[in-house]
């Protein structure tokens, strides 16, 4: 393999405290190195921004609800159609791009890794099938556990050891990376058309609360010492007055001790924007961003991603089935649902986040307010919860908003967003602007740390040569004044390098490589796993509709695995 020097770039590598230093980055055989020989190929990136490749900690890019979205919204697939060329297959879709398009579009933005944040175990094979169809970007699938019948029973009975063994076994069975919890107990209630209201409202029949499920899963997570903490979508998503539920959710695991050296948090709050509302109804809704941000600022056991509204027409999809039915009742657009036996549910509804409407404008303001109020960039990541708050191709636009108070003010002044954006939120009072180092943190370094990645997210020798170069001279541009140039540059990487291979040059995909699937293999828990499987199997055989042999994900569904081996520790 070739050796390369990226020469004279201006490097932002937050993990190594490098913030805008002019230096060379070298790599060989797919890894970052300190030195290369004189044969190394030189890529002149003089005065261009060099960062680790982007890492998206929360998106929905592969799996059953994505495909329901694509099947039932041909109007979305008719957008974003791109002809094939010698390198790329044809693309389609805007909010729910086809699998090949997903890979190319992340690549063009300089991204190298993305988390598929909701994998139903029963349909894990489907998720992995789609991952195989997405090129150029490594994918971390998180299996859903928050409404699993076995999990709810273990949580109710306080059997944390058995729960840990169950999780450990199920990560192997589904080839998953960590624990995802969505509207704990609420999605189970949706099995009967209901929901729970807050963290202490029990699921029907199982008589267990979200608090108990979250705590039990958090304890199991720490018992196993998984690289990622529990990944939580709290109850009450999108409801005015939901911020106390959010804060209570974060607070309910505060006493649980971290058991992993590779991450700092014990709970990751997902799409915080949808969970930071005060008031009692959409009439009197106010931003709760200050309270949520305040809690995060005071508590290091929490990280979050935002779920920033992008003001587009999109397709919302989440395992929070009851929320999606509410959304359908609200906007009257066509409703899809996909409930999964014994495990989870989901809903899918198109949505138009128009800046001409008060509520989307308010949500836009809440998201940005959170970004600007959370002080430590290592505790926050840039996401749109793709495609829920908007498609991931809008990340460069969000970066431009974060870097320019002037642009935000202009949007409010020109009524690109309605008055609720500043009258119901604190956005109008905030003039913080992110710098390039903070952008590098919230789009790559923090996400890598939150997931406990040991091979990406920084330009440390020995790490994967996952690098993005953007055609911007940070000494030459004032991002506050030139948001369009920022958006253009971050949307069209000058180089995207992954595992030492140049995949994008000057905004064009020049090479296509297969993706990797990242999953966690817990070791040292085999006896407990065996015991728990023996207990689980009679129930499994009676109530699932597939045989266990046909439930598990066979190895060929992950042809390029990157396995994180964890020694379970007590």
């Amino acid at each position: 393999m070739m050796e390369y020097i990226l020469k004279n770039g201006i490097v932002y590598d937050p993990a190594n405290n490098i913030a805008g230093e002019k230096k060379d980055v070298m790599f060989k055989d797919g890894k970052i190195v300190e030195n290369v020989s004189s044969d190394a190929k030189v890529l002149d990136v003089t005065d261009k921004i060099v960062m680790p490749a982007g890492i998206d900690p929360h998106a929905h890019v592969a799996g059953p609800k994505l495909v329901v979205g694509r099947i039932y919204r041909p109007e979305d697939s008719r957008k974003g159609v791109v002809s094939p060329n010698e390198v790329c297959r044809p693309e389609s879709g805007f909010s729910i791009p086809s699998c090949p398009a997903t890979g190319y579009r992340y690549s063009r933005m300089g991204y190298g890794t993305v988390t598929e944040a909701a994998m139903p175990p029963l349909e894990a094979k489907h998720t992995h099938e789609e991952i195989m169809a997405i090129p150029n970007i490594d994918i971390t699938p998180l299996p859903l556990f928050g409404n699993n019948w076995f999990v709810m029973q273990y949580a109710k009975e306080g059997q944390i050891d058995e729960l840990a063994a169950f999780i450990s076994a199920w990560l192997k069975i589904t080839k998953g990376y960590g624990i995802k919890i969505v509207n704990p107990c609420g999605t189970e209630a949706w099995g009967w058309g209901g929901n729970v209201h807050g963290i202490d409202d029990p699921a029907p029949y199982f008589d267990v609360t979200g608090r108990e499920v979250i705590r039990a899963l958090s304890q199991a997570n720490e018992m196993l010492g998984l690289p990622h903490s529990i990944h939580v979508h709290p109850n009450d998503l999108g409801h005015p007055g939901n911020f106390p539920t959010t804060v209570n959710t974060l607070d309910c695991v505060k006493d649980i001790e971290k058991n992993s050296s590779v991450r700092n948090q014990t709970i990751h709050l997902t799409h915080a924007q949808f969970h930071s509302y005060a008031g009692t109804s959409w009439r009197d809704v106010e931003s709760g961003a200050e309270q949520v941000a305040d809690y995060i600022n005071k508590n290091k056991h929490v990280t979050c991603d935002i779920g920033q509204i992008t003001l587009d027409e999109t397709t919302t999809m989440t395992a929070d089935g009851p929320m999606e039915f509410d959304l359908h009742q609200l906007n009257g657009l066509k409703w899809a649902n996909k409930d999964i036996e014994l495990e989870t549910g989901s809903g899918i509804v198109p949505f138009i986040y128009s800046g001409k409407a008060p509520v989307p404008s308010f949500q836009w303001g809440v998201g940005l307010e959170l970004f600007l109020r959370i002080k430590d960039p290592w505790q926050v990541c840039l996401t749109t919860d793709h495609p829920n708050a908007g498609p991931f191709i809008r990340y460069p636009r969000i970066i431009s908003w974060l870097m320019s108070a002037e642009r935000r003010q202009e949007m409010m002044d020109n009524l690109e967003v309605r008055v609720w954006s500043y009258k119901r939120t604190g956005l109008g009072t905030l003039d913080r602007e992110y710098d390039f180092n903070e952008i590098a943190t919230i789009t790559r370094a923090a996400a890598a740390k939150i997931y406990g990645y040991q091979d990406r997210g920084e330009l440390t020798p020995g790490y994967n040569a996952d690098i993005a170069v953007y055609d911007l001279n940070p000494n030459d541009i004032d991002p506050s004044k030139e948001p369009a140039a920022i958006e253009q540059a971050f949307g069209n990487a000058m180089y995207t390098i992954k595992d030492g291979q140049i995949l994008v040059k000057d905004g064009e995909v020049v090479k296509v490589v297969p993706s990797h699937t990242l999953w966690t293999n817990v070791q040292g828990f085999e006896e407990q796993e065996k015991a728990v499987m023996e207990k689980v199997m009679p129930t499994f055989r009676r109530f699932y509709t597939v045989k266990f042999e046909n439930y598990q994900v066979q190895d060929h569904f992950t042809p390029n695995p990157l396995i994180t081996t964890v020694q379970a520790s007590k």
Partner: protein
Amino acid sequence: MAYEPPVTDYDEIVENGTCAFCGCNCDDLDFLVKDGHVVGVRHACRLGASKVMEDMDQRLMVPMIRDENGELQEVDWDTALDKAAELIAGAVRPIFYGWSETSIETMKHGIRLGELVGAVLDNQATICHGPSLQAVQNAGYPIATLGEVKNRADMIIYSGSNPMNSHPRHLARYSTFPRGWFRKRGRFDRTLVTMDPKYSDTAKMSDIWVGFEQNGDYGFYNAIRAAVKGKEIDQDYVSGIPKEDIMELAEAMKNVQFGALFFGLGLTHTLSKQRNIDMAIEMLVDLNEHAKWILTPMRGHFNVNGFNIFMAYECGFPYGVDYCRGYQRYMNGETNTIDLLTRKECDVFMVIAADPGAHYPGGAVKHLAEIPVIQVDIHWGPSTEIADVVLPGSFIGVECAGTSYRMDGVPIYMKKAVDKPETCRDDEWIIRELHERVQKIKAEEAAAASK
């Protein structure tokens, strides 16, 4: 029916095999294998068992090409593949149709070949549940996996579908009979309703049979919707059903805990076509304001849903996808197989694991008889009679492993039980070979053109 003694003479049992018949994809089959053949099947319904066991009947064994006298002649694999590749490479408007009885792995090569030559890729949905998919695009798709029905449902409706004959284990394994977590007494805890003009075998065993008039589906569901919404029905009879019965049924449907509606081609293909399903979906959405309701199309072939899912994640559209301009286009009535054939647009037709000769309207078959047809399949059928090149494939789920998607979207990896006949090839291999050979021809053409 005469008593058949159980099969006791076998060498081994292959457990947890998947049935390659209908969209139930029952994955609990035990194949009894002797001398490399399946001699018995446990747990399967008669449809599934007969398909698996009598598979050698009418089996296509060797590649064939039609000679100048119009007779199919045996040839070697290279000759047959070269001929097929030459036809595909030279085609202006090729269609690759079928796929519903083969694996996702095969489709992966098929779409790449389709993109390469600008083909139309289509499957059986174009003549079966296509209107259901159109309705899904109009009105929504509230679905659940079959285990949700088994564990929760207290009311099951089959509309325009007769699963006792078409999906014989559907009631037994997934919906009506099984004892579920919340339905401990199985059948006794559920109300079974059949909505069908015909007094079918399913209707005979139902608690309620609603025999509305032929083509009365749209009106009937409309009336149920009105009743669910608390509106007055101003006719005494709707679609032949008394107003009072409709009111009573609507009330019952509102008061269940979990209801599941399964619909078949009897709803999809009556006069109002996809508008029937539109109305059924809308009815179900209305019902969800009162109780939990889901619906699922009763898909026919074991992987017909798989092709729709596969195409959607690869290119964004479920079926009838046209690559003639390099990128994907999809427009019902424009890019579907029957339209293209009856307009005589198609010049080469490849059929994979399907039998258009048996199912297409006359006009479409007439055009097929006039153009080169390549058949990849395991059995001799009407399509073989019009095929110019025949490529014998293998039987997914018995002779060859592969991924398929059940009617509710649950993926199942169908494992292999016995070896295929030596002279046959895996579908996946055949399509990959065709892709490679067509690529070579295209490269040679490009090289010659640049000289």
